[in-house]
């Protein structure tokens, strides 16, 4: 693949820089310490944080977003911790996730469900019954734990959340 220089889109990097302040993805010198550390990369070799940063700097993220691989980040934060130039690839990836959603891309189904649950229930998943060692089902009530109340008790909160996360639903 040869790169047509006219395709370089610097706005992507500008947007990302604004979102990840005070981190500095523009200082990356491709030492790949992040990818050496990356938890996801160990089980999914196609996922390479240093490459994601390099592509972001050129604004060439279309294929990247189409592949959806940015959702594979395990957010272990090792890359940010060890990066010598405060690039913090994990923050770049989170920024790309936000930008992708704003552009209309959809996140993995489970995350959509979490967002929906938060808006409707206040938690990322509803309370469930669990199976114990003795093969009995237990719930909060049978475990004698205090009852769960719905946190967002006023509609303004729900409105706010709907506005902020509604884009994925």
């Amino acid at each position, binding site marked *: 693949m040869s790169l047509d220089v006219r395709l370089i889109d610097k706005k992507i990097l500008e947007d990302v820089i604004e979102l990840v302040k005070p981190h500095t993805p523009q200082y990356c*010198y*491709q*030492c*790949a*310490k*992040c*990818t*050496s*550390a990356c938890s996801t*990369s*160990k089980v999914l*070799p196609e996922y*390479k944080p*240093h490459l994601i940063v390099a592509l972001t700097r050129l604004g060439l993220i279309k294929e990247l977003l189409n592949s959806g691989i940015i959702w594979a980040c395990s957010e272990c934060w*090792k890359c940010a911790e*060890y990066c*010598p*130039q*405060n690039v913090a690839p994990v923050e770049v990836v989170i920024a790309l996730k936000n930008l992708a959603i704003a552009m209309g891309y959809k996140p993995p189904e489970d995350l959509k469900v979490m967002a929906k649950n938060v808006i409707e229930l206040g938690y990322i998943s509803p309370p469930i019954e669990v199976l114990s060692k003795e093969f009995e089902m237990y719930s909060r009530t049978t475990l004698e734990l205090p009852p769960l109340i719905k946190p967002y008790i006023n509609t303004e909160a729900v409105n706010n959340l709907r506005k902020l996360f509604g884009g994925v639903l």
Partner: protein
Amino acid sequence: MSDVRVGVYICHCGKNIAGVINPAKVAEFASKLPNVVVARDYMYMCSSPGQSLIEEDIKKYNLNRVIVAACSPRMHEPTFQAVLKRAGLNPWLLQMVNIREHDTWVHEDTPDKAEEKAKELVAAAVARATHLYEITTEKAPVVKSALVIGGGIAGIRAALDLANAGIKVYLVEKRQSIGGRMAQLDKTFPTLDCSKCILTPLMVDVARHPNIEIYAYSEVVDVSGSAGDFKVKIKLKPTYVDWSKCTGCGTCVEKCPGKAPNEFDEGLGFRKAIYFEFAQAVPRRPVIDPRYCLWFTKGICRVCSKVCPVGAIDYEQKERYVELNVGAIVVAIGYEIYDMTKMVEYGYGKFKNVITGLQLERLSDADGPTKGRIVRLSDGREPKTVAIVLCAGSRDEKHVRYCCRFGCAAALKHVYYVKHAVPDAKVLVLYTDVRAFGKGFEEFYQKVRSWDDVYFIRGRPAEIFEDKDGSLIFDVYDSNTNQLINVRADLVVLESAVVPPKDWEPLRRLLKVSCDPGGFALELHPKLRPFETTADGIFLAGTIQGPKDIPDTVAHAAAAAAVAIGFLLKGYVESVPYLATVNEDLCSGCGLCVSVCPYDAITIEEKEGRRVAKVNVIRCKGCGACAATCPSGAMQQHYFTDTQILSEVSTLAGGAK
């Protein structure tokens, strides 16, 4: 002012000035100003005919003030001052007006306004000229001797050059022997010379030089005075051995039962409680370390004093102080390596087989703790796979921001050490960029690239873990082949970042030397004057100014010595012309000036029952802080008195007429 006679000269500066304004018109304007006797314009005022013009006018018209409106004073103030001197006038009766950098070069688009501005500036200068007066500088003699702090290769080079120029040198070294870091290295790149072999002859030269006096195991504890006349107090730490009696036979060291960690070997191996720093130490005299000596800690033993053939052991020895008077000081205290335990991810300090490049030097050195065998520290076996990590801590915002400069070359040298000691070892060089910039470096790098079983991996490891057998296991991403490589290494060598000596702050403050963001000594100008400081008479030699390899260190030290020699052989220091002066009638002795003077040049004295400020004319550098601070106006600065400045200001405020 009686009979002020001003000559005004407007330069064309070719087209630089004349291309924007009309110098003749400005001259014509100037000729009508009060006290102006003659006003001319000319093509190039600084040229020979231009200068002659001024000189002749001074004589013809009996001028006693000269205004030159031209370029910046930083260009030609000395040129025109020389003209005044030749014509028999005090050079400080000259006033330059900058109508180039401050006018025509920045106002090209508005030539009319530029011409008005030139006229206003000249009018202001003429007003000020009325208040100019003669200034003479004072000279003070310079003590023809130098103090060199630090006995590494930089201090050694500087000391030898100074001594060879006939200057008496005091070389102070805080360790027991001179030699510094070079003594710790096995070989030097790219020639692979044995480091001690090229160093020790110089160490001996220093010891034998009639003009050099070495104070080893000593430290500078106080500095006072000023350039050309420093008073320095040296503390001679107790060695507990009378070095004047000691012959350096070494029997005491041989028999000593005490055991201490070996700092020279970077913590690898042990030394005795009484010890020489290394075998070729200069001076070759032992030191007792009371922290590990059985007599000092437990009240037993004293074997050394029993076996010493000349009775040189002296457990009662106390620290001594010596006062020296020197004209110049050269700071050559070197560098330290970054504390790699701070990079938790690499396991240095936790895992035995993770070592620094300097520790590898000690292993490789035939005189070192393993007699030149490169081994795993955990079990003493030969390493079959060695990983060398470049930029460990360097170029890292979280650790050391800057490049260490010699890490890449040192790593290439370390490949040689390992392949030489263990020919069938696999060596991995884990790099980000290889900076092989010096003479002979690229050829060396080429050679190393071609060696059997040496692999250059472009990637930086993030975390290093240890397996049960002491091997190191880690992942590193290679961006050359685009794959994650799992490494199992017997030995990991960290080419660590380089930092200034961690305890040099008190010395730095004594000398009034600033530091740069990395903590290294701040040079006067990074490109043009890297071995001088803002403190007169104090020079920088070697890595204390910033990381360097040996050739650059030696060049830097020789340059510092050369400038110091020039300074000392001139024989005198001269006060700056724009000195602070005290009007004692107005001075109340409040001392505010003392508190703002960066050069400690002002003291408050008792004079006829009153307290008044007194300026040391050699220490004063004419910065003006005191004059600006003085609430009563008692403190004035020559060439920048309140009257002079205010006359300019009020003329400008009134506009050119």
